[in-house]
């Protein structure tokens, strides 16, 4: 088990290193931040000077070494577009996205586990069929569309909740929750629908297993057998999907962030790309990649916690 963990940690570190080189190389290939800053009528002289100030005229390897050296010390550098330190910006934006994703995933789980389980247990009945179809519809609706529709109805038409924005929870907890309900729902309901399909098929798989028949034979009702023994086993494939979903949402939340004007990491990335803010983009992407890798690492470790059989491999 320990060797497995160390191996995964090594893969994690190598992937992160490769990612940083790829990201850096890609960004030095596209666009010219100096021209973006100076506009169309800039003189060649001004362009050369600005490139020099930004350090873009140095060799690729030197630029990379400086940047990665700073990153290793936790210094993301100072943006030459906003002239602000990038690290704190990423921290702030990431925190916002974490609130968004955490709430969204809780909603997703609250929807997916009961719906998926019921749909599986009652898969031959009308209830199961209806739940199954509903989750199919949920998958078909993109979360930003769900967001737009909910804003149109609940915020604009009924005036019950704000249409968007973000306040720090410590400053105004009520305002924070009021603004986050719709984003959580639009993210969570759609992700929940996706997840519910996996829960259903995982539970269905387990229902055919011998141990469940044994449990039933011991006198447990089908429900109790599924909840007590089936869910634990079904949670392994579900956990895998959950991990992948988390990573997708981290990046995919940008659309929901745009609809609800939430200053998260996705919006920060898109804005920085549009402004050719190369250092900021590098910092954000490496952060996202690191988080994605960390999530898959945690998911791997969680398998062994849930399923003791895996510890022996």
């Amino acid at each position: 088990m320990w060797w497995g963990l160390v191996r995964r940690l090594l893969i994690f570190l190598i992937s992160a290193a490769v990612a940083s080189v790829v990201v850096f190389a890609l960004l030095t290939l596209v666009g010219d931040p100096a021209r973006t800053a100076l506009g169309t009528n800039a003189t060649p002289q001004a362009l050369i000077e600005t490139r020099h100030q930004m350090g873009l005229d140095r060799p690729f390897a030197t630029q990379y070494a400086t940047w990665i050296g700073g990153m290793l010390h936790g210094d993301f550098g100072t943006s030459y577009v906003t002239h602000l330190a990038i690290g704190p910006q990423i921290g702030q934006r990431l925190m916002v996205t974490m609130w968004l994703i955490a709430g969204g995933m809780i909603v997703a789980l609250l929807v997916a586990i009961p719906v998926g389980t019921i749909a599986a247990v009652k898969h031959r009945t009308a209830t199961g069929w209806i739940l199954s179809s509903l989750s199919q519809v949920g998958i078909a609706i993109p979360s930003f569309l769900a967001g737009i529709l909910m804003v149109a109805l609940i915020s604009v038409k009924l005036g019950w909740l704000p249409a968007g924005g973000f306040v720090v929870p410590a400053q105004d907890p009520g305002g924070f929750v009021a603004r986050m309900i719709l984003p959580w729902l639009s993210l969570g309901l759609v992700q929940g629908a996706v997840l519910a399909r996996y829960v259903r098929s995982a539970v269905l798989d387990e229902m055919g297993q011998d141990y469940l028949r044994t449990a039933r034979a011991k006198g447990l009702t089908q429900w109790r057998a599924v909840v007590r023994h089936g869910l634990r086993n079904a949670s392994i494939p579900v956990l895998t999907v959950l991990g992948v979903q988390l990573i997708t949402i981290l990046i995919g939340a940008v659309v929901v962030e745009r609809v609800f004007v939430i200053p998260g990491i996705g919006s920060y990335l898109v804005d920085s790309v549009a402004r050719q803010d190369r250092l900021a983009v590098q910092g954000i992407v490496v952060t996202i990649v690191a988080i994605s890798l960390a999530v898959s690492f945690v998911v791997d470790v969680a398998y062994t916690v849930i399923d003791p059989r895996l510890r022996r491999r």
Partner: protein
Amino acid sequence: MTWSGTRSLVAVVAAAALVLAGCSAGSGLTGSSESGASASSTSEVTASSNAGVPEGSTTAGADQSSSGSAATPAPSDGTLSLGLVLAPANMDFTTTDGAAIPQVLLSNVYETLVTQAQDGSIQPGLAKSWTVSADAKTYDFTIRSGVTFSDGTPFTAADAAFSIDYVKTKWTVGVAKAMEVVTSATAVSPTELKVVLAEPNALWLFKMTTRIGAMMSPKHVDKLATEAIGTGPFVVSGWQPNQSVTLTRNDKYWGSPAHEKNVVFTYFSDSTAMNNALLTGAIQVITTVQTPQALAQFKSGNKYTIINGTTNGKVMMTMNDGHGPLSDIRVRQAINYALDKPAILKGAWAGYGTVIGSHEVPTDPWYVDLANQYPHNIAKAKQLLAEAGKSSLTLRLALPPVPYAAAAAPIIVSQLAQVGITVKTSDVTFDNWLAKIFGGDHDYDLTIINHVEQYDVTTVFSGKPDYYTQYTNPEVTKLETAGLAGDHDTFIADFKKVVTILADDAAAAWLWAFPNLMVTDSNVHGLPENAIGESLDVSGLYTD
């Protein structure tokens, strides 16, 4: 288990794809001011016919303050939020181009020696009066006394001389070129500034109302990107990059104080989100309507006011005058005859705006109504194409990511198809537009763009093939040069000839003058109706 490894790879690839996708989706938000990366209209408008131009030796009135000239009620403790599209990249317009920074900072935080009124006339600002020598090369400004920067230091002629020199020596953005004509700027006394030009230039004083005329403090120029210290009615009290800029009333302001204590510029990348913010009371003003078709929801009842003012934006289908079939004047004229411009305006922009026929807007002092130069005439268009031997023709139309281009393109394609021209459209990112069409080899036939800068005819159509229009006509160059160096009457007369020649040559297919469409809560007043210069002056804003 190789899961972890595979997934790591997936994560890397996903991140890389994301970067590339982001690049192609990036709409060049800090794009140049004259190409108008968005519908954001920040150029000023002149309404009077002799506006914006110094008339020989002039002494302007000394009593009028540059702001707060409208009768606004007493200052309040209120806060108003405005919705905008393009967020400023930072606070420094000396090294960062684009409309967004001057939009929030100019006239609100930084002031200029002279300002432009809503009618386009040049008014006193930090200079209470000025005289121009007979040879039109020397300007003597009398600087207002008692003015301080928001940090408390007095503003004097020495600061003005410093600011002008600073444009010449330290500014890196393209617009700084307009200051090259200045030979010297000298503080004769704390209230007297003498500026000498190398040659007469009819547009220099007007340029001093734009961002290059901003008066800055020598003490703060090393921190311009994050701290804006000016003499204006507001100070910057908060800045969340890409989200908002908060302006707070400057209590040391020399003129009439701003009415609202706080004005928040809030930036929305999604027009629906901005509309919803107004509908739910999160903001009180939409300063840039991106989709005029969506205005209907604000029309019912008395809750909102729709402001339909003017800008200097000229939405045009630019033609590559120096390349291929479009270098033939008959083909360009045929295209103009083939287009039903009123129908395009109605279909693409809900009829808001004015059809134009040359590189001008109705508020330009040299405006000549040329909208009917090429009335919609399919037969005439076909005949011209036949004469040119181009009865069947295929052209490429490049579309930058701006709403008006996307809206106008399908109508244009179908209208040109009726005269036998096949148009192949392609979407280009703003970066690509800048690199390949505006710059580089100008590899394009047609493109649609809004040129938002005021009085930019000398840039866009200089008559020399040094701009992406590739338009060549020595007569135009001669008239423009003579006009800029001449007196006021010559200037106006020559520029009238220029816009007429441009229309005769069908140098482009001009479509419509871009409107300044805003929506406000009905109790919000004091917003400038026409898009003022490069700034959105909010000092007169108030609610009742």
